[in-house]
């Protein structure tokens, strides 16, 4: 199934996602956005077949991607699952896919041609540091998965990120782009939006036009599970 290419990454959300994931300035995010494309896939749509040339590095913005292989017995086995904020594909050099990749749920990927990304990394230290951080984070995730170690739940990670963004008075200014914050803590926009709505409903966080205000740091900390 052919993916739907949305546009050339002009949206504020996508720039914010890049900034959040690569921890870079808006200028560097803009440079990266210029070589990125947003691609949407329906549930179960094939993103790549095993053996296909792999010439792109993908960042999962929404949904999830599963890597699958057929064993010698013909049984399909799931190798990995990449959720929001994770990367897969080719880097630093083009290669071939060693497994098939398919979308799980409605999925949106930010795709960067490997060769162009390598060139950008050579010229933009912020992007280079961002790629290194993303790869290190990915390695950490792989180790977590191997060890089946317990960590925070998705809402817990989101609340912790809110606390980390706040200044000593509990102000988060400007108000974060929730879709971007969600991706940076490996969860979905829906989960993050519901988590924020829940603390706003209880008065733990106030939502203003230009900022978020944490009213009770202790109550928010208690929700980090």
């Amino acid at each position, binding site marked *: 199934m052919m993916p739907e290419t949305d546009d050339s990454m002009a949206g504020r959300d996508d720039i914010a996602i890049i900034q959040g994931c690569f921890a870079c300035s808006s200028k560097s995010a803009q440079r990266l956005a210029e070589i990125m494309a947003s691609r949407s896939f329906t*549930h179960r749509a094939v993103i790549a077949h095993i053996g296909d040339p792999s010439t792109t590095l993908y960042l999962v913005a929404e949904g999830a991607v599963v890597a699958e292989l057929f064993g010698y017995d013909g049984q399909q086995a799931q190798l990995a699952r990449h959720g929001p904020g994770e990367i897969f594909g080719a880097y630093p050099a083009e290669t071939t896919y060693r497994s098939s990749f398919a979308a799980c749920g*409605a999925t949106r990927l930010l795709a960067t041609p490997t060769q162009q990304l390598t060139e950008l990394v050579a010229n933009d230290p912020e992007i280079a540091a961002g790629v290194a951080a993303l790869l290190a984070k990915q390695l950490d995730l792989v180790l977590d998965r191997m060890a*089946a170690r317990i960590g925070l*739940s998705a809402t817990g990670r989101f609340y912790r990120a809110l606390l980390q963004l706040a200044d000593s008075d509990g102000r988060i200014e400007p108000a974060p782009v929730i879709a971007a914050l969600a991706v940076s803590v490996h969860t979905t926009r829906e989960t993050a939006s519901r988590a924020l709505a829940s603390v706003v*409903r*209880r*008065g733990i966080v106030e939502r203003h036009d230009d900022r978020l205000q944490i009213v009770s740091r202790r109550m928010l900390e208690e929700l980090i*599970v």
Partner: protein
Amino acid sequence: MAEGAGSNVLKSLLALARAGATSRAWTAFVAAGLEASDDPEVLTLKGRLLKDQARHAQGSKRSALFARAGEAYELAATSGSYSYPLINAAAMALHAGDFDKAGRLAQKALELVDTGIDKGETPYWGEATRAEALLLSGETEAARASLSKAVALAPQAWEDQSSTLRQFASILAVTGQDGGWLDQFRPPPVMHFNGILGIAADDLIAHAAIEAAVADIAPGFAFGALAAGADIIAADAALSVGAELHVVLPSEPEDFRDSSVSPMGDEWLPRFDRIIACADSVTVCASDERTSTASVELAELHAMGMAVEKAEQLQAKAVALRIEPAQRPALGDPWLHSGRPIHHVAVTAVRDSTVAQLPAARLFYDIALDGNRQHSFGTIDEAVDAVKALGAGRAALDCRIGERIRVGTLLSHSAHGMLATSRGAALALLATGLASRIETIGEIATTVGPIEICLATFSGPPE
């Protein structure tokens, strides 16, 4: 208490307490060497743990535990001008039978709130603390007015309101007052709905009957799937009475739309799409699986469990709406066995319920026990019986549809003899009435996706 390891210990102890493991939480608290700590955060937790124990105790032991809980809260309050530990100290003194002390501490808390020295952690808690202080001071009418103000400040802070209502009910009981007036502040019921697929889209009689039943229940929250027929009509009716709608599907919306909506007629599709778009949440139970008999069963349990969990959190009533032909017995309905109320709506089916046309699959319940023993069962009752037969020791429970057994990865998180479960299994335990409480403690990353992990407490007398 410093950030890091110490803070994590407190969090894990609080999780145990919230899961209902009262005595285990206290044993772990003492074992962690925290009993003599003068850290306000530790003292507040100590108060909470002693209070939980007191609630399960009788006679003089009960009073003594409440008194010790009060002392812990009072000590925590001395570290600063905080109304939260102070108002708890006042309530504990009342439960311990020291009415004078309760009044004195309540007045101190009232002063802190009235003078603005402590405005409360949130606007709701500031006013609710004032209301509780007034109640403990014997000014019931003023307390009622103050509680109304608190609720108006955060009308949907259901979790906080339920905590206040629980506290008020116990104070009114101790002082021999009628607690009936608290009902006006209780949250609306939580509804789980399901029913047959075979209802014609233009069956006005069925629509009217279902809408009338939903209006009668007046749910504030509704949980269920969204198959063509009864589900869609009930979900629409719930939205029309202003309920929060939480859709729980066995598979991804696109799969479910193809398997359980489209075959009943294209006229259902726009309704499905509209409801999915405006639902407060959409939970997919088995996103890797296609809709099957097993995934439908799993989603049913998941939705029921979520409804029960919400009702427990809010201290609200959990009710079920069942829409089916009058002659069809609902013997397999877990809700029936839980003893919670069920509203039945009798409808006429125009065609057979098509669950039978879905691909057949089996739902398994896996348990892992100490010594690397793992077993699989066809029903959750059998799995729970096997865990209970073990007695003490670590145990984990998971449910699955495919071949991939994951329960072994859960076992190491069975802290303090508590049952560690995936969230899906925990919700199934709640739905079937086999667990009284569940508490999320985090998430395990695995190669096939994250598993949210819970501690569960079996129903029965307190441990």
